[in-house]
């Protein structure tokens, strides 16, 4: 049976899709058969970040409505052969995701894959609820600022109450905190919440910290998951995240502000 992982946040623009793409790629790099599903109906983005937008013919909604078979809608990743993308529709809205339809697709994917990664839309409405319903684990993507933390807190409450596991009284969803867009310098300056502040507020295990970086923007503009941006701190940080998710111990990186050396200060960075 596959493990279902939802990438969620409550708030928009915090890095759910970037994380879904990088995380799914990381799992596939390690040899797991992985599929990543875009639940953000009407605001199709995952295919762009994965660089497969020109190959979308059928989508998740077509499959739910029986207009296409699952095999027709799955797109094989251009870089990793055991990674598949299930894109969503840009022209429909979230009501197109029916409970039964999603359940049927999830069940079919469970047979085929080791990991099913669900990229949740922002908000706490039906789309987000459908995305988290089947989850075994959740990655709660949070930015170090108060509104994002509060929305993550809200979504954690919903994870504990509205998922399939909660309804069936099964073991609760494993919750992981992923802090993204972290800028140690701005934390030091008091402009951002620190890692400790966020953990103190949310009180769930930390999966990793992704530093704020221009590489993310370059990666998504090029349609390359950030984990493939060789040598960048972001790629290393996402690699750590995947390793920790799979049970490896890795020390936290990129949480200290770089000390600018004498020459750097003298000649500019």
């Amino acid at each position: 049976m596959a493990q279902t992982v939802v990438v969620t946040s409550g708030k928009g623009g915090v890095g759910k899709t970037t994380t879904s793409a990088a995380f799914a790629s990381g799992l596939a790099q390690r040899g797991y058969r992985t599929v990543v599903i875009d639940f953000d109906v009407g605001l199709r983005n995952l295919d762009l970040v994965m660089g497969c937008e020109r190959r979308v013919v059928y989508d998740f909604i077509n499959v739910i409505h029986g207009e296409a078979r699952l095999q027709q809608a799955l797109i094989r990743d251009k870089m990793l052969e055991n990674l598949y993308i299930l894109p969503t529709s840009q022209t429909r809205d979230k009501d197109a995701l029916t409970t039964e339809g999603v359940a049927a697709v999830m069940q079919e994917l469970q047979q085929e894959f080791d990991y099913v990664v669900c990229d949740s839309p922002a908000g706490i409405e039906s789309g987000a609820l459908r995305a988290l319903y089947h989850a075994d684990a959740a990655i709660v993507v949070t930015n170090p600022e108060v509104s994002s933390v509060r929305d993550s807190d809200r979504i954690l409450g919903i994870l504990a109450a509205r998922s399939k596991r909660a309804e069936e009284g099964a073991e609760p969803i494993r919750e992981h905190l992923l802090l993204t867009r972290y800028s140690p310098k701005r934390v030091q300056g008091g402009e951002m919440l620190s890692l400790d502040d966020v953990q103190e507020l949310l009180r769930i295990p930390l999966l990793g910290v992704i530093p704020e970086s221009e590489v993310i923007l370059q990666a998504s503009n090029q349609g390359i998951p950030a984990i493939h941006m060789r040598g960048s701190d972001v790629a290393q940080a996402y690699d750590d995240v995947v390793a920790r998710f799979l049970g490896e111990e890795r020390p936290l990186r990129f949480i200290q502000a770089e000390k600018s050396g004498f020459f750097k200060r003298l000649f500019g960075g």
Partner: protein
Amino acid sequence: MPAAQPPKSSLRLSGGVFTLSILRLADLSPEALADELAAQGTALQLLQGAPLVLDLGECPSSTPLPFAELLSVLRAQGCVPIGVRNANATQATAAAAHGLPQLRGREESTPAAAPPPVAPAAGGVLQQGLRSGQRHYARGGDLVCLGAVNAGAEVLADGHIHVYGPLRGRALAGVQGDETAYIFCQRLEAELVAIAGVYINLDAEHPLWGKAAQVSLEGEHLHIIALAK
């Protein structure tokens, strides 16, 4: 523009939607009704002067209702009956004779469909904290919360509230009006605290912010002091 049109008549007819109280009359003699109403005690005060619809759905259809007597009993108690519903043809005619029209209301909740009365739980212990958007009400007793009450969460109790994690959301003690209720917390960072409806908003300027504190009601003001060590 409506102002441009001169009024043709000083009378204006328009529609409106009103919420009305419904009194279900079972098989009752006027005397029994008087006794039952008297037994309601303070609950009856809520009906003073309020328009009331009489639901005849549970009255036996065969026997004619003594409308005149029933109405005088109700009016004597300060109720203002304005109509009937679920009346059969004979009952409706009799009601109309007393100036009570038959009203068609949505049948929303019959007593049979109402949930069975929940046994009053005397307070409770919350093992886990509350997250933003969650709400917990300890009916009929005290509430003990072992974890945090996060910003945007709400704890309510008829009695005292004890929070052992940080209290960042709202805490409302004595919500049924118990003015002797207290709020105790290990870290006061609440958005709002209230006792018996008297509330105060807090912010980081408060001298006890982040500290262990107790809140009580003294007269008409909330009194926040450090929790004695």
